């Protein structure tokens, strides 16, 4: 179980650029929960992910994973059990390395400590990667020695998804990971995400700007505003909700209208 307790974070304190990104953020996420997160621009969605992943240390508050305090555990240590995908499909992979090499770097999380740092990729691992890649249905399994830089954005994001989950993470953080892809590819990557998360019951949080997606996917929807969670819908409350309900609830709870340029566009599309 992931717990955030009263997290506060101010960037550039004491300067003109001072920005309080998180104020008193608290959250409990049970094992196997799949939470979708929506909110205005600058509501602190990505900052919350940063606090969970350890990109920065919070000014106040605690991050607990299964009861263990990981507030000040460093980012690369946390990445042993926290998988992440970013909006930019180019950030999650190394373009000048081959698909196989990228996967084996990601697979280090599994072998850390067990195998020597001077060992090479084994044939067994190659077969394992081949099998995993074929599940993506993109033909990447036949291009394992190609540099990743030659792949399309969608293929790279699918590969990143595979890399983040090749060792099942305890938490998977998806930060608008389909936003930069064209609609057809986005749908495909999203479907893969749903499959992998459901199959392995991964505890997952996904930021999205698509309101319908937020209600459709997962088991819980969080709305953020001004560095806090203002609305948390799960179970029967969430089941019958429409996008209009969601927008209304947001306005009630946050005391202002939802202000996210991309959200407005995507709800227009949805109608």
């Amino acid at each position, binding site marked *: 179980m992931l717990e955030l307790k009263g997290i506060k974070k101010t960037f550039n304190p004491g300067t003109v650029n001072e920005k309080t990104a998180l104020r008193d953020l608290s959250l409990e996420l049970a094992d196997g929960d799949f939470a979708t997160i929506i909110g205005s621009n600058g509501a602190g969605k990505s900052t919350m992910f940063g606090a969970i992943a350890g990109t920065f240390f919070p000014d106040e508050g605690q991050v607990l994973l299964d009861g263990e305090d990981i507030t000040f555990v460093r980012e690369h240590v946390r990445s042993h059990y926290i*998988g992440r995908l970013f909006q930019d499909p180019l*950030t999650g992979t190394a373009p000048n*390395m081959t698909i196989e090499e*990228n996967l084996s*770097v990601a697979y*280090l999380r599994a072998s850390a400590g067990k195998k020597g740092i001077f*060992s090479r990729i084994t044939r067994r691992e190659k077969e394992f990667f081949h099998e995993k890649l074929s599940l993506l249905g993109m033909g990447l399994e036949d291009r394992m020695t190609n540099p990743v830089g030659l792949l399309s954005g969608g293929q790279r994001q699918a590969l990143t998804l595979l*890399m983040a989950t090749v060792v099942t993470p305890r938490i998977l953080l998806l930060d608008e990971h389909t936003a930069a892809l064209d609609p057809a590819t986005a749908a495909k990557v999203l479907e893969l995400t749903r499959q992998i998360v459901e199959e392995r019951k991964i505890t997952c949080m996904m930021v999205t700007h698509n309101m319908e997606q937020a209600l459709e996917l997962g088991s819980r929807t969080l709305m953020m505003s001004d560095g806090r969670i203002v609305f948390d819908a799960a179970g029967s409350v969430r089941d019958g909700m429409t996008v209009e309900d969601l927008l209304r609830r947001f306005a009630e709870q946050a005391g202002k209208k939802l202000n996210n340029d991309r959200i407005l566009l995507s709800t227009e599309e949805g109608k």
Partner: protein
Amino acid sequence: MGHFLTVQIIQTALEIGLIYSLIALSLFISFSILNICDLSTDGCYTLGCAVGAVVTISGHPFLAIPASMAAGVCSGFVTALLQTRFGVQSILAGIIVNTGLYTVNLAVMGFSSNLSIFGTDTIFSLAKGLSSAAWWQSWYKLILLGCIVLVVCLVLYWFLGTRLGLSIRATGDSPAMVRASSINPAFTITVGLCISNSLTGLAGSLIAQYNKTSDINLGTGMVTIALASLVIGESLSRKRHMAVRIACVLAGSCLYRLIVSLALRLNIPTEAFKLVSAVIVAIALILPSAKSMIALNLKKRRMKAPGQRGGNGHA
């Protein structure tokens, strides 16, 4: 032509080229793979040379090689420490270490600016004594250096395919991915720079024994030369397979020395040598963009040319 470019000249160019290729490989690790500008090369090379000369003079030419490499590792470790632990920018960290090394190098050489290796064996004199055959007597330096560089390349190639090597490559290629893959970038950068500088130290040790001398100003401008070799090599390989890239760095270094030898044969005065080097480096750096500029101009001309059918640009 036969007199213009003798076997002797080519041979010397290849020998020096092989020694310098170790520095080019060092920059290949720091500059191309780790994407870090390590400007401590000049000082580190002189350090390797000074340590190599001192140990050789004391009668241990073989020990001089690991000693110089260890000195290079120390230098690389300090550069890495400044960057990773204390957040100093990589260029500044390199310059600071480079400046500090000047005094260190003087101290290693017993506060004299010049050391000569007289009366003791070097790895070259030992190799020379292995056989009295005529071909060996004229080629032993090149063969010995070739073997050393070959071993270094094989080890480097093997290393870059290991888990640690892949992590180092990923660190330079995609920092975000590395942090998400449980790799500590501070660790990989440190290991990478230590290995990189150990190669520079090795080159210094070899040049000390090759020239039988060590000079405090030996390393000046070395980073430019090595960078030129690297750029020539990388433009040959176009980022293909790792083995090809390593081989091309070697080829680039030897090619660079050949170009310099040619330039010197054109009776360019020795005072102008640095300028000639800089011009060669500049040309090597300009070449890729010049190529695409010329290609674009040709294409434009083709498409504008009157009386062409269609205008789809396929001439």
